[in-house]
């Protein structure tokens, strides 16, 4: 990037920001910014429960899929839009699994150790397809070196996230099956296919089975799910740094002029093309 000492300016951290707006403009940049938020991590757990673990219990002759909810929803959602596990009076029907995030702790073992005001450590990766390298005859003739498209992503914040999970069933026999399923899936990477995944671990289940007067018998198994996650926020501070998060390599064309004395003894080089004064490559022989 060329630096114009007269018009470029610096931001609060002293970093030089070029005044050339064309560098900032991302009109043709359709590459989505990489963002991993807490919602993505919470949703990964939901997806994994619903589509991979799929806890079920036997009820009569049929298998019943156990619903999963995020803990402490709003009252209107809880009562009016949770019909699958409620009866007409609003009483919760079991079995049911609840999970909710209880803590987000920085993972110091994988600290990115950067100043958020001026992060200068990025992961750079090359996008495979670049529309600037579309095929044409000129490329073929002149041996154009293709342009390479690079994207920069900041190093994420590595975090340890804890979830409180409770399995609530009518029967211990149902609870057994669900606990077995979840236990089997622990210590593996949870998440959607082709998307971000997170290592999920759990250590123990706390089992309680109580019979209170005036209430139904209650069988609950609670456990803490620990996720090793990473966060790339989608905030303005990150965007200020990422003004040039997409860059292109230089497409190079080598055009050489060769003078020969004998037309029958032309140099047979793949990269060297005999051109006239106009600089236009001659037509390929048919």
């Amino acid at each position, binding site marked *: 990037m060329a630096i114009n000492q007269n018009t470029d300016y610096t931001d609060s951290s002293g970093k030089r920001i070029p005044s050339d707006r064309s560098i900032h403009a991302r009109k043709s940049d359709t590459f989505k910014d990489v963002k991993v938020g807490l919602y993505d991590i919470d949703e990964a757990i939901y997806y994994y429960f619903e589509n991979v673990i799929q806890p079920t219990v036997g009820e009569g002759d049929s298998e019943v899929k156990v619903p999963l909810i995020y803990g402490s929803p709003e009252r209107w959602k809880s009562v009016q839009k949770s019909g699958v596990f409620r009866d007409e009076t609003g009483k919760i029907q079991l079995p049911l699994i609840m999970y909710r995030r209880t803590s987000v702790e920085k993972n110091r073992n994988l600290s990115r150790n950067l100043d958020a005001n001026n992060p200068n450590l990025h992961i750079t990766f090359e996008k495979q397809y670049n529309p600037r390298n579309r095929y044409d005859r000129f490329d073929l003739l002149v041996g154009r070196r293709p342009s390479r498209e690079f994207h920069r992503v900041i190093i994420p914040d590595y975090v340890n996230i804890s979830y409180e999970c409770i399995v609530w069933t009518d029967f211990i026999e149902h609870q057994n099956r669900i606990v077995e399923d979840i236990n089997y899936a622990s210590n593996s990477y949870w998440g959607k296919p082709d998307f971000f995944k997170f290592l999920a671990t759990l250590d123990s289940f706390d089992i309680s089975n109580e019979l209170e007067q*005036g209430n139904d018998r209650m069988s609950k198994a609670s456990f803490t799910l620990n996720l090793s996650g990473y966060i790339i926020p989608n905030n303005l501070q990150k965007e200020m740094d990422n003004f040039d998060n997409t860059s292109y390599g230089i497409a190079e064309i080598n055009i050489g002029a060769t003078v020969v004395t004998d037309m029958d003894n032309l140099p047979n080089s793949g990269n060297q093309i005999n051109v006239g004064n106009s600089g236009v490559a001659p037509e390929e022989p048919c």
Partner: protein
Amino acid sequence: MALFGGQRDISLFRTLSRELINKLIDIEVDIFKSAVYDSDTNIYGESINKVYKPGVRVACLVETENQEWESSEFGMDVNQQIKFSFLRDDLLPAGSIGTPSANVVLEVGDTIWWNNIYWELDSVVENQFIVGKDPENDKGFISGDRQEFGSSFSIICSGHQTRKSKVQLDDIRAGFKYGLYNE
């Protein structure tokens, strides 16, 4: 010998009470008793596939408390307490004392269907003796020293709203998709 509480008195009370409960108030509930010999239990003392005896419809008095809404990590949940008061003679087998004759013995854990809710009985109280005597346990009547006096008149059960998923008498798993992915 007692002056009051003889069988003519008891019959008067019974007739008036039956008319009141069965014809005037006329609140009917269905009593479902577990078929204990047909319901297999596991080592946890629970039956995944319960079997019930056919429901018996009986008239009674019903007193409900207000619904109690409790907020927990699972969202809002409702519970309600109830009291069923039965005329004991209505629950006796046919041929005992007139009709109705439901022939059912109420016990803790039985299920009662009323107002579109299943109620699980937490307690069964039989403690309302007219003139303080229950002929079945009256020493004087049993020994033949005196005639039959008094009566065990009512059975009062208290219970709570139970989950249909536990009772398993209704199909509650139908008709709605759930989840972000409509699974």
